[in-house]
């Protein structure tokens, strides 16, 4: 029954994508990539939260809180919460620069700002390096979810089906289709998390409303844990909207004001997290220890809720994975065909983008089947690389006179520093390696400028 309900929801999502297609007068490259820059604030809100709150919100957050305790919960909630005020102030400026340069992708903004096709191509490669593990991570999450649905016998077929559906979203309407599907996904995800959370509260407290002080059951943080959490919150919170996996969604807005208005309400979406915390608290306090923390949320759902509700929760998780997979593959394909190999796309840009999406999905499928452990390490590294693009955005947004060569050197130095610290396991007071990398990056980019001013 569970598989049937999930299949029905996925079919419904394809119907939503078809609806998006039927409402579009035409399907140009701009429609695919930036929804014709026409999304009003409510639709931008739905698209952005749909893409930000991926399968990780259901799987990774409860799992991390369960396994690592308070510092993990603080970090996860803190960086997301800080990202929205930052986005409120920088988001409209990012949108304005993308419109000014008539850019559909992040490398196009950089290339046109610095007036260099080579720089555009190099940043496109960098963005793709940061995006591929993120897309791959969705496949890994989808495989875990399919396994929890009791379909571990045919994971390859299930994942291939997911790839076909993700491609269908892209081919039917690109970003606009993603917005329509996101509405369905967000509804299911909010319902699922709230249902499990309320069930956990009722089971834990028996609905009496009388509570005594409970001892802390989550793992208590050490000082170094909190140093890491704080530095990561600052690093990821400030850099969130500068990541190549997030920035393109801002390009779809109708106006800078639409971006600002959408940001005002973004933190309210986080009100689902208290329910996830209560569900995890119930698991820690009342259930036997789990070997696989990744399944903690679904385990609580299975224990407390009827199967049809669990199926809807699963469907929300599957849609979350599919949606981010579709948008990420579209983003990668756009960079491949517009910035790296524009000649191949000449004359048939939409067909080239679709081919790029198919190619990425096939390669990601093969990698998921053969090297999932390597991909998880790659995901960690991509987190350190993606936010290094923040220094380029600082230059673009402030119009500071920095050459492409210096800006590129900053990104390379920052990423190399972060990866070296991560790979060596060297700890600098528990500070996030990516944060140190970003400081090095900004020092390389901006220090020559100060030196120049002082000389002048």
């Amino acid at each position, binding site marked *: 029954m569970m598989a049937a309900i999930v299949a029905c929801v996925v079919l419904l999502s394809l119907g939503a994508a078809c609806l998006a297609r039927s409402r579009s007068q035409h399907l140009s490259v701009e429609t695919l990539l930036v929804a014709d820059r026409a999304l009003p604030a409510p639709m931008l809100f739905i698209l952005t939260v749909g893409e930000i709150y991926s399968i990780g919100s259901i799987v990774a957050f409860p799992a991390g809180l369960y396994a690592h305790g308070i510092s993990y919960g603080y970090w996860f909630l803190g960086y997301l919460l800080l990202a929205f005020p930052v986005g409120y102030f920088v988001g409209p400026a990012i949108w304005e620069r993308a419109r000014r340069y008539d850019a559909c992708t992040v490398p196009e903004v950089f290339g046109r700002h610095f007036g260099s096709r080579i720089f555009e191509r190099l940043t496109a490669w960098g963005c793709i390096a940061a995006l591929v593990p993120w897309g791959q991570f969705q496949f890994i999450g989808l495989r875990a979810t399919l396994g929890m649905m009791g379909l571990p016998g045919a994971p390859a077929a299930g994942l291939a089906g997911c790839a076909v559906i993700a491609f269908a979203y892209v081919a039917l309407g690109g970003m606009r289709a993603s917005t329509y599907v996101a509405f369905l996904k967000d509804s299911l995800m909010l319902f699922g998390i709230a249902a499990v959370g309320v069930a956990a509260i009722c089971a834990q407290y028996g609905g009496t409303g009388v509570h005594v002080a409970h001892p802390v059951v989550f793992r208590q943080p050490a000082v170094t844990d909190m140093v890491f959490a704080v530095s990561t919150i600052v690093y990821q919170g400030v850099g969130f909207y500068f990541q190549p996996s997030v920035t393109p969604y801002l390009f779809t807005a109708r106006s800078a004001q639409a971006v600002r208005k959408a940001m005002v309400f973004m933190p309210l979406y986080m009100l689902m997290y208290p329910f996830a915390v209560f569900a995890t608290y119930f698991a820690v306090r009342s259930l036997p220890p789990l070997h696989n923390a990744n399944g903690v949320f679904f385990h609580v759902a299975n224990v407390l809720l009827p199967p049809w509700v669990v199926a809807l929760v699963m469907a929300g998780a599957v849609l979350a994975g599919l949606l981010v997979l579709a948008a990420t593959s579209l983003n990668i394909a756009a960079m491949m065909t517009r910035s790296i190999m524009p000649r191949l796309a000449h004359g048939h840009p939409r067909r080239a983008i679709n081919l790029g999406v198919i190619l990425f999905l096939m390669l990601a499928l093969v990698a998921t089947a053969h090297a999932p452990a390597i991909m998880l390490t790659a995901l960690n590294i991509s987190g350190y690389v993606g936010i290094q693009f923040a220094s380029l955005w600082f230059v673009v947004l402030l119009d500071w*006179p920095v050459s492409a060569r210096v800006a590129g050197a900053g990104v390379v130095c920052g990423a190399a520093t972060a990866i070296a610290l991560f790979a060596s396991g060297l700890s600098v007071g528990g500070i996030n390696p990516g944060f140190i990398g970003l400081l090095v990056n900004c020092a390389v980019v901006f220090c020559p400028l100060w030196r120049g001013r002082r000389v002048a």
Partner: protein
Amino acid sequence: MNPDRQPDRPDWRRVALGLGVPFMAIVPVAPFLGFLSWTIMGIPVILVWMFVWFPLTSLCLWLCEQRS
């Protein structure tokens, strides 16, 4: 790169309200709550503090929007 362009001048009071206030609540204040053993319905006080700041952050941004 167009050197003749002037960046937009920020309204520092709006920045303080919309960014400064949530930042102070999340970054310098919250970590100290992480070491407290108090709980509310079993949930550590630092997480409850974060929950409270979900609507408060929206409120700060809404007030910023009203001033713009």
